[in-house]
């Protein structure tokens, strides 16, 4: 299942990319800017300010997922089984569905629409969610991309069994792998993941000789301090990767939490201006890594 195909992205690998966002992630990072990509099933998003009160969603919801509170619909998220049945029902697009089962052919055909912009460099990037959480779909997409001569990249948290990741490696031209923290306690408690697994996989990956870029979301209060970033850079360099991207914290995903009926865990934290990371980026460059802000 995927939840978005982003056309012509400039920031997710070499050249111009078509990014396939795959649904479902083992982690629950509080700064996640794609919260609609976390769960493995289709989900309803609802923007009450767009609702015109036409009740078409009530008519389409057959299992009592939606109640009417007088002014608009209330979603009983515990009851929603078949969110997909509500796709393209709402005329106002107040209610939309994240998550769609699409055939590999259809996804790749969508990506190929960007082909004129690849010009030898660009191609498909699998992202998410966590692409390797759907190893079969990931593999099939990568095979199809290869058949069509498109380059392929993946953005991954690596917090998945190596067996899920490894078969895809020969089909990938580049991997953008998260290294969120090297402090296992902090990592595990913030993300709900397993630092040992993620870091171990990173070492394995970097040892394979594939172009690997470490991606570090720089989150205030989690890893934005100089010591944490230095430790991360030290680990990345030691593992044998060549470049590291510092991704400044932003709250652009905040609105989507509301659409999902969830509270934004990092409410109130201000966006990090990219320029403000320049001093630390210069320091980290002493590790020999190629440091990029954004990426």
């Amino acid at each position: 299942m995927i939840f978005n195909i982003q056309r012509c992205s400039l920031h997710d690998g070499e050249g111009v990319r078509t990014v396939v966002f795959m649904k479902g992630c083992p982690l629950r990072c509080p700064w996640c800017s794609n919260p609609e990509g976390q769960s493995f099933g289709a989900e309803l998003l609802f923007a009450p300010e767009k609702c015109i009160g036409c009740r078409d969603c009530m008519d389409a919801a057959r299992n009592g997922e939606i109640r009417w509170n007088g002014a608009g619909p209330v979603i009983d998220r515990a009851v929603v089984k078949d969110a997909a049945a509500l796709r393209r029902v709402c005329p106002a697009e107040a209610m939309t569905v994240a998550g769609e089962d699409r055939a590999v052919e259809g996804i790749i055909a969508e990506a190929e629409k960007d082909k004129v912009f690849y010009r030898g460099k660009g191609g498909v990037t699998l992202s998410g969610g966590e692409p390797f959480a759907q190893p079969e779909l990931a593999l099939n997409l990568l095979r199809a991309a290869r058949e069509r001569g498109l380059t392929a990249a993946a953005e991954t948290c690596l917090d998945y069994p190596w067996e899920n990741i490894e078969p895809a490696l020969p089909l990938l031209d580049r991997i953008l792998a998260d290294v969120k923290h090297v402090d296992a306690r902090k990592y595990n408690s913030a993300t709900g993941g397993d630092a040992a697994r993620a870091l171990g996989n990173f070492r394995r990956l970097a040892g394979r000789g594939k172009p690997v870029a470490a991606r570090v979301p720089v989150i205030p209060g989690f890893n934005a301090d100089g010591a944490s970033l230095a430790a991360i850079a030290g680990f990345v360099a030691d593992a044998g990767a060549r470049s590291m991207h510092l991704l400044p914290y932003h709250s652009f995903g905040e609105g989507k939490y509301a659409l999902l009926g969830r509270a934004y865990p990092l409410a109130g934290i201000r966006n990090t201006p990219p320029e403000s990371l320049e001093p630390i980026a210069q320091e980290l460059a002493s590790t020999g890594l190629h440091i990029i802000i954004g990426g």
Partner: protein
Amino acid sequence: MTAAQEVHEPRAYDIPAAKPDMTPRVRRLREKVLSARPGVCLERARAYTRVYRENESRPVIIRRALGLLETLTSGGIRIDEDDLLVGGHSSRLRAAPIFPEYAVGWILEELDEFEKRPGDAFYLDEDQKAELRDLLPWWSGKTLVEKGYGIMPPQVKEVHDSGIIRAEGNLTSGDGHVAIWHEKFLALGIGGYRRETGRLMAGLDFTKAEDIRRRLFYEAVLICLDGMERHIGRFADLARADAEKTSAPKRRAELLRIAGICDHIKSEPPRDFHEALQLIWFSQAVLQIESNGHSLSLGRLDQYLYPFYLRDRAAGRIGDEQALELLECLWIKLMSVNKIRSWSHTRFSAGGPLYQNVTIGGQTPDGGDAVNRLSYLILRSVGETGLTQPNLSVRYHRRLPEPFLMECLKVIGKGFGMPAFNNDEIVIPEMIQLGVGEREARDYSAIGCIEVAVPGRWGYRCTGMSFLNFMRAFLAALRDGREPVSGKTFRKGDGNFEDFAGFDQLMRAWKTQAVFYARMQVAVDAAVDLAIEEFAPDILCSAFTDRCLERGKTIKEGGSKYDFISGLQVGIANLGNSLAAIRKLVFEEKRIGKAELMAALDSDFAGPGGEKLRLLLLNHAPKFGNDDEYVDRLAAEAYALFIDEYATHVTTRRGRGPIGCRYYAGTSSISANVPQGASVPATPDGRKAWTPLAEGCSPSSGTDRLGAGAVFKSVARLPTGRIFGGVLLNQKLSPSAIRTDADKDKLGVMLRGFFDSLKGWHVQYNIVDRETLLAAQREPERHRDLVVRVAGYSAFFTALSPDTQDDIIARTEQTL
């Protein structure tokens, strides 16, 4: 072969280093022009009124020549203390001359309103108003606009008056949209033209009526050249007098240099870079005193100026800093030009643009890369001054050097909308198809905004004839031909939509209206052309355009070598989106009934279910700009039905000399989408009544959801080769999207994809975030020099009226 090609070897130049920034002199000049309040200058009106009154028996062409002579020799002139280039469009910075021979009615009517306008205000003092009330009434009944409407056949006039087709600006202010042949102009100098005119005049045979006519043209040319020479001579005298008065030795030397330059170029060809720039500026100013038509363009400045630059550089006479400073002085001079338009015309051309285009890059006549060192200097200097003039275009081609493209993207990143790109890969082959010689096709330049012509060899208005409101014509197609705003049936239709059995019937009904309005658009323009030819011929501009002197004809009489023109069609995306919504929701999915749709349109989606239906139309049908063939092909097909008819017609010059004399379609409809939308009821794309239409060929605001690449793909599906008046695409990017060099690099890759593979015509960028625009609305004083791309041109955001500001804010911002 031009001088530029003889000396130019690909990359036989070093890329100039970035210098710190504008010199203090340029800063002061820039500040002065920015702070000058727009006003009017009455000198031209005074001179023309006097001359026209005293010479009523003489032919129009002679009166016009004498009017120009009088203005150039009697007007007040001054040299500002920082000027390196001298001369002006009027007696004061940003003061628009008045052109009473075109129209006076609107001036008198709006006299007390100019300063109250919501955008593009002009400030007149009471003395000026009193003098205009005194001068202008004499013109009543004698102006071009009145004569033009008098010529227009009643049936055509009725359509024009309904507002479905608008040609007002053409009658109230003349043609423009042209570039003279600067190369020849700089080679011959004013004296050279005088000698050539004299020689041709001597060979006339007055037993032939046409030679009697020709003589009048030549006489008029000589009068105008005399005016130009004396005008420049006055500046030589003034500079010398000012030099006497100044005690600062440096300024004194500058003034004496200016005097020497003017003495020389008043009749002789320029000898160096500074002289060439000065003569270019004089011609640019004088041609805009002769005619009030805008989009008078400078053509390929980096090509025809290059020999002068190279010679000076080789001799060690000019460094980068001096070259940049002189160029920047020219941009500020271009910025000092102003034009006052009627309020209704202003709304089509929001932000007071003059569209004085400068084109750089592209190819040599042999097909080599034409980028040179001067191209970089021009690009850099325009980036430094960051003004709305000149309107800078870069000609893209496959082998455009990567460093140059990157430099362009850096300037674009500054956010003032320049440079825009035109694409050689489509323009040149299509021009050759039209019948233009290969070497000349490679020498094209942008004119005004995004339209193209071979400078100095092409007549007026390669685009910019009348504006056709596609959506009003489309609504008529749904109602058996009855146009809902006027209530009139100009062309009986094919029945009412409620009775249409299938989608094909709708396309047939559209075709009927499209064919009719194509013919009407030609008819309106033909009447306008006849009126201008007879009542407001341009003399100097014709003399500097190839074949006019040789033929003894003005451009409008068929003097130019090539002649292709286009009107504009407004609402392309709305047309495609409306067709797609109807096909999908009414005929295929049957989610909306035919009568239900018509009732919703009539009521502007009022009543129970109205808004729901509107949202269905808006959200549940494909929209142009999302790389969706379903709608893109409909837009292309519907437009082609119009073009099939439009392109069969010929201009008033057919058989009188020029090659071509044909029409092609155009979409560089500047800011017309806002006022034209204001006259259109609700449309089936879910657009509410009276709101803006889609701008140019850009998607409707907010409906392109898949980013810049998908927009490129959709736009490329239009029949670009047949829309030679320009396929205008505005893209708005958030500044964060192209923050780093790597981002710019990738944006360059996308551009190359659009141009090389998709054969796109043009693209231009707005790189400014929503917050900045909103802040500028709240605090205009603090954002006085915020420049944005409106359509094919840039304008000061705070000078725009609130509705145009809102339209720009509403455009989809691509994050990439």
